[in-house]
Each structure stands twice: as structure tokens, then as C-alpha cells.
């Protein structure tokens, strides 16, 4: 009986609720939904404070991803949906958030969200998502002053990492740590920028006797260099922070930060919720300006 193939690229989905926040006392309940090509998040805020969020795979069911993310966030929250005053959709699939009052680009939302989850000292935000990389410069209010988004080439994106984790048989959660478990000097980066060619190159290295860890190190290094060349284009000014799923991969991030020569800011929040949090905050700002939904 054939063993069921373990889905190594599958990362952990999660939801979270603030047990102490009295959302019933809030003036405005706003929701941000970030539908990405790989993951979707819903963030529920009460007067600009996070009450609940959910982070899950978008899957192929994109029209329902927004609904699924919101349901996952509301799960066990004892908040009826009609209590939501305003909803903003963002991300690649923002056109597929049928219940959103408005949509705002993920550039604006990530800057605003990073300002919230990392603090207003942040001036440079790097978002490495499933299928794109965004480098954003912002001011102390989280307003964007310079941005660059690369969504044409998969090199350096989460998708690229998933391909490798699958190829090498390493679960995506372990890639970071294992990419440092080799003896001797760090191997050179793989020479192909292209994920497709890098995959063939990796197969060749394994055949030559490289260990899985050495190939992982080589690929993570190439990804770090790729991301570095993009973020350098907008210029890095401290404080610097990273959002999106790749922030959780120290195999790439540690190598990237040593190239940049700074320490990345730390947060207690899940780095993948930055877009949805920013969207919910814009909703709150719009409500306070009287531009919310007419009840």
C-alpha cells in the first residue's frame, strides 16, 4: 500500500483571539482581508487594536478564500458579522473579496501594517510573499514614500522555497535551521536566478555528493542575494523589518541581514498578518473621517 506523500511544503495555518479585549466597547469594528496568491489573512480590529486574526492557505478556491479567512478568524469569537463596520480587501485577490466595502493595494497596507506590528520607527519594509517581493520605504505614520514590487519572477519568493523544500524532502518549517547544519565553509550560492534552473542545479549537486543541508544553504544564499538586490534599489534605512511568510525562514533572512548589515526589527505578531492589519487600520481611519459605510 503506497505511503501517502507527505506535503512538506505545507506550513502551519493559525488563528488567534485576544481573550481580554472587550470589542463590544469599541466604536468601530474594522476588518482587513488580505488574499494573497499563496496565503490569505483576515484581521479584525476594535478601534485599531487587533481583536482576532487568521492565516491560512488561499488554495485554488480563490473566490471563497476571503470568506474562509474571515470565518476562521471569527471562529469561537462570539462576534456576529453584522457588527463589522467596515471591511477592506487587499492583496493579489482583493477583487475577490465580495463583502469588502473597498479595496486598497497591498503596498499601502503592508507599510501601514508594518508600522503597527513593528512600531513607528520602521522606515523600510521588506515583504517576501508567496509569489512576489515588495520593498517599501515609509514614514513614521506608515505612509509609503518609495516602493518596488517584483511579481514577475519567482526567484526569491515563497513559491521558490516551496519548490525546493519539496525537491529536497525537507518540511518548510525546518528549512531555516537545516540550512545552517553543515560542516566547514558556507557553500557558494546556486548560480541560477531562475527557480526552474536552480531546481536542476540542485539535483546535480546532490548527485555530486552534496548533503541536503549544503544544497539548502546554497539555495538560501542565492535567494538572499536576489532579495538584497531588489531591496537595495529602494535603499535601506533603519529601522528595517520583514513581513510575509519568508520572515519566518531564518535560512534566507539571516543571510540577507548579514548582507544588509543591520538587525531586523522584532515583533510578537505573526509577520504574515501585516497586510490584513494595515487594511483594517485604513478601515478604522476612514471610519473616523466619516467615510465609513452608511448604516
Amino acid at each position, binding site marked *: 500500500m503506497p505511503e501517502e506523500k507527505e506535503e512538506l511544503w505545507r506550513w502551519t495555518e493559525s488563528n488567534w483571539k485576544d481573550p481580554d479585549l472587550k470589542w463590544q466597547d469599541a466604536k468601530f469594528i474594522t476588518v482587513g482581508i488580505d488574499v494573497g496568491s499563496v496565503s490569505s489573512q483576515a484581521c479584525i480590529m476594535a478601534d485599531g487594536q487587533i481583536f482576532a486574526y487568521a492565516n491560512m492557505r488561499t488554495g485554488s478556491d480563490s473566490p471563497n478564500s476571503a470568506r474562509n479567512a474571515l470565518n476562521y478568524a471569527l471562529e469561537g469569537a462570539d462576534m456576529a458579522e453584522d457588527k463589522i463596520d467596515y471591511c477592506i480587501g487587499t492583496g493579489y485577490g482583493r477583487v475577490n473579496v465580495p463583502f469588502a466595502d473597498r479595496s486598497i493595494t497591498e*503596498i*499601502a497596507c503592508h507599510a501601514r501594517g508594518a508600522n503597527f506590528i513593528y512600531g513607528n520607527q520602521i522606515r523600510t519594509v521588506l515583504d517576501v510573499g508567496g509569489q512576489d517581493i515588495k520593498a517599501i520605504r515609509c514614514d513614521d505614520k506608515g*505612509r509609503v514614500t518609495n*516602493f518596488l514590487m517584483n*511579481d514577475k519572477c519567482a526567484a526569491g519568493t515563497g513559491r521558490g522555497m516551496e519548490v525546493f523544500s519539496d525537491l529536497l524532502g525537507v518540511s518548510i518549517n525546518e528549512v531555516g535551521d537545516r540550512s545552517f547544519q553543515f560542516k566547514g565553509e558556507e557553500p557558494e550560492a546556486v548560480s541560477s536566478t531562475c527557480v526552474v534552473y536552480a531546481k536542476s542545479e540542485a539535483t546535480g549537486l546532490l548527485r555530486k555528493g552534496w548533503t541536503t543541508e549544503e544544497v539548502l544553504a546554497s539555495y538560501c544564499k542565492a535567494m538572499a542575494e536576489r532579495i538584497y538586490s531588489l531591496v537595495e*534599489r529602494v535603499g535601506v534605512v533603519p529601522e528595517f523589518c520583514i513581513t510575509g511568510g519568508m520572515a519566518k525562514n531564518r535560512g534566507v533572512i539571516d543571510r540577507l541581514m548579514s548582507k544588509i548589515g543591520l538587525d531586523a526589527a522584532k515583533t510578537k505578531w505573526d509577520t504574515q498578518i501585516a497586510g490584513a492589519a494595515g487594511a483594517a487600520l485604513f478601515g478604522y481611519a476612514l471610519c473616523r473621517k466619516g467615510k465609513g459605510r452608511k448604516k
Partner: protein
Amino acid sequence: MLANYGYSDGSGSYFITIDTDKCDGCGDCVDACPAKLFEVLDEDPNDPMRDGPVAVIEAEMKKKMKYACNLCKPQGDRPALPCVEACKAGAISHSW
């Protein structure tokens, strides 16, 4: 805000940068571009708190920059780019 539209891949980096602090949404670039890359929107999608129209690169075109801009970026003797020339505010620049 410096809005960089375009991409970077193994062959190079191709970005058109529009400085939204200088742009007033006049639309001269829309008329000037033979590849129809530009459009003017009533609101800046990347800056919800900004009021007023702004020029952007059309969403479907930003992944085609390298080839779309070929018409105006021949090798050899290069005349001034129509979009850069057309913009009175000097808000537009190319990376390559």
C-alpha cells in the same frame, strides 16, 4: 512617493518610476506613450490618504515593461523618451 512599476529578472531590471509628489494627473504621459502603458486614476491606489488624480502604469502592462518600452529604447542613438519629455513636472524616470 516614488512608485516603481516593473520587474527584475535574470536579464536585468526594468522599472519606470513615477514621483507622485510631482504628478498632478495631467495625463500628458498617457498621450505620449506609443505602447499605452500609462493611465490616470482619480485616486492613488497606493496612497489612500492622498487626494487627487495620479498617473500609474496599467496593471497588465507592468510585467511587460522590457518589451513594451523597446519601441522607445532602441540600441545606439537614443532620442529622448516621449513619456519623460511629455511630463512637465519631471515626475517620470526609467531605470534602464
